[in-house]
């Protein structure tokens, strides 16, 4: 018995840094109410037609309600005020919902078959006019209920707002359990609401800076498993990975170009961190910045021709802009005594960054459709790592509460916030995936 135990422990110990695809502990989300003044919508519980009982964890209407509330643009009617449960539009009594001051209504049914396939039908209607806006069916399988609910949420969101929904997307993040030299790190990919977490990498050495490829199939990240920072690119589906940068000094802050062919990164092999571009086909490194400061945290503009990055060449960290062909960099942040880790929405219209003012660090957002003033949308004191949903409507960021790192999802206007915490320790460095390829 003892030798077996020792052998088993030794085998566990050998898992220094293993790329694995395994279950992980979920992020915990409290229930969320929609914001006052947001568009009222009622999502009636979907009728369940099956020989087997329904699993309440996969209640699609409930998932859709949470999604729409979290977006900050909708306020879903609470379940206890849904006094009738029609499953088709011809069963709906419109005056009930007009009395409840609802603008939109969704009804649906799940036909669950003995062979575990499912057909999910739903309809979206305008309460005030009684007009049907959407009537669709999705084919799926048992076990895919959450995915289907996210896809339906996207369809509803896009039909009403005109903006593509980002509920059926994923997030990557890093977790850490322990202190000092005994920390266990994981890089995890989950649904955008934190469910279905999958371990992508596990390590006894730090993991940092996950970055999605534009096709959503790979993650670049920083790992210290070799005894120093190094950058890997890993296929999420297979776990296969490639070491792309392991020079002396810092290898950090990877960012895929919008066409997926290049990786921007920060390398300090020349003596101090400089923004460098790696051509993934030719393996050529091209240094973009040249000065004695710390230049890091590069981010591509959507046209792939310019980058924004953090530099302390002026004394303290600020955001600068440089052409992808190199040349002079121009400062673009002018509020606050510290600006770093900028993130740009996929359409380039919104910028989010970490802004520090006298050692309180908050997320600031610039909406370039409005003006160039940065608006603080969080409370601090230690907020960082903002990442946009691919439709630019929501931001995930990391924060600290006491001794724990937690994540927050906040609508881009700052009005609705939801906390995501990891039961086993710290969670940090969220990164929102691109849209799934249609």
């Amino acid at each position: 018995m003892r030798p077996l135990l020792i052998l088993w422990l030794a085998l566990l110990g050998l898992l220094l840094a293993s790329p694995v695809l395994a279950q992980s502990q979920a992020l915990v989300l409290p229930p969320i109410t929609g914001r006052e003044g947001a568009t009222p919508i009622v999502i009636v519980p979907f009728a369940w037609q099956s020989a087997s009982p329904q699993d309440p964890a996969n209640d699609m209407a409930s998932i859709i309600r949470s999604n729409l509330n979290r977006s900050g643009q909708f306020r879903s009617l609470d379940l206890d005020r849904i006094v009738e449960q029609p499953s088709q539009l011809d069963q709906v009594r419109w005056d009930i919902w007009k009395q409840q001051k609802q603008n939109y209504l969704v009804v649906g049914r799940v036909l669950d078959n003995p062979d575990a396939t499912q057909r999910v039908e739903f309809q979206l209607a305008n309460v005030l006019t009684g007009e049907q806006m959407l009537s669709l069916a999705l084919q799926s399988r048992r076990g895919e209920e959450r995915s289907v609910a996210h896809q339906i949420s996207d369809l509803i969101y896009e039909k009403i707002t005109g903006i593509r929904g980002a509920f059926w997307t994923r997030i990557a993040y890093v977790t850490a359990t322990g202190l000092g030299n005994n920390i266990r790190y994981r890089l995890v990919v989950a649904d955008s609401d934190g469910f279905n977490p999958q371990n992508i990498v596990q390590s006894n050495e730090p993991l940092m800076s996950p970055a999605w490829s534009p096709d959503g199939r790979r993650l670049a990240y920083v790992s210290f498993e070799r005894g120093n920072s190094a950058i890997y690119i890993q296929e999420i589906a297979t776990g296969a990975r490639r070491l792309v940068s392991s020079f002396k000094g810092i290898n950090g802050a990877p960012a895929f170009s919008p066409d997926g062919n290049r990786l921007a990164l920060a390398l300090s092999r020349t003596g101090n961190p400089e923004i460098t571009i790696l051509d993934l086909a030719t393996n050529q490194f091209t240094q973009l910045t040249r000065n004695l400061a710390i230049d890091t945290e590069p981010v591509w503009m959507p046209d792939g021709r310019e980058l924004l990055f953090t530099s302390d060449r002026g004394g303290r960290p600020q955001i600068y802009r440089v052409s992808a062909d190199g040349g002079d960099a121009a400062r673009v942040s002018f509020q606050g005594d510290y600006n770093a880790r900028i993130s740009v929405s996929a359409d380039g219209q919104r910028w989010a960054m970490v802004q520090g003012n006298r050692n309180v660090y908050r997320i600031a957002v610039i909406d370039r459709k409005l003006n160039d003033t940065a608006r603080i949308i969080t409370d601090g004191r230690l907020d960082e790592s903002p990442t946009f949903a691919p439709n630019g409507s929501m931001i995930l960021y990391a924060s600290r509460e006491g001794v724990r790192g937690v994540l927050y999802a906040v609508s881009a206007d700052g009005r609705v916030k939801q906390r995501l915490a990891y039961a086993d320790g710290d969670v940090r460095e969220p990164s929102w995936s691109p849209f799934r390829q249609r």
Partner: protein
Amino acid sequence: MNNTLRILALAAAIAVLAGCKTKSNETPETPRASDPPPAAQAEPARGESWTDVTLLDTKPCLKARTVNFDFDQADVSGQFDEMIGCHAKWLQNNPGARLTLEGNADERGTREYNLGLGERRGNAVRDLLLAKGARSEQLTVVSYGEERPVCAESTDDCWARNRRADLVYTQRQ
């Protein structure tokens, strides 16, 4: 008889002179400073040997392995001068020794920028060691930024403990 005596006296004189000459060869006119005295005789009163590996675990300035820094600074305070001098001397006396300088930062500010700050701190300690006689192939700087905190509280005290460079011997001799 007088000739034999004279020859004997001359032979004796030559012998004495030959002996003197040998003696003067053994005693150099100017001392040769480049000859290091054998280690065992270096500091006989303290019984310390700078090639005895146990010294790393017994001598206080060598047991000390952490340099702390002020907020946002990478300057090494004078209070660490003696400690760094000791490690430099160890490295000088043990050419096979290899030392990694792990730079760290407190949690405030962004993570990748803090990798840069940690590296500045590791570099600062490295530069001092080089100035005090260590050789560059003996030193490696690795920055962990804020990723390896020794405490998790968001307090000035904990932050001060995390702003550090750790000296880690990967090879002691």
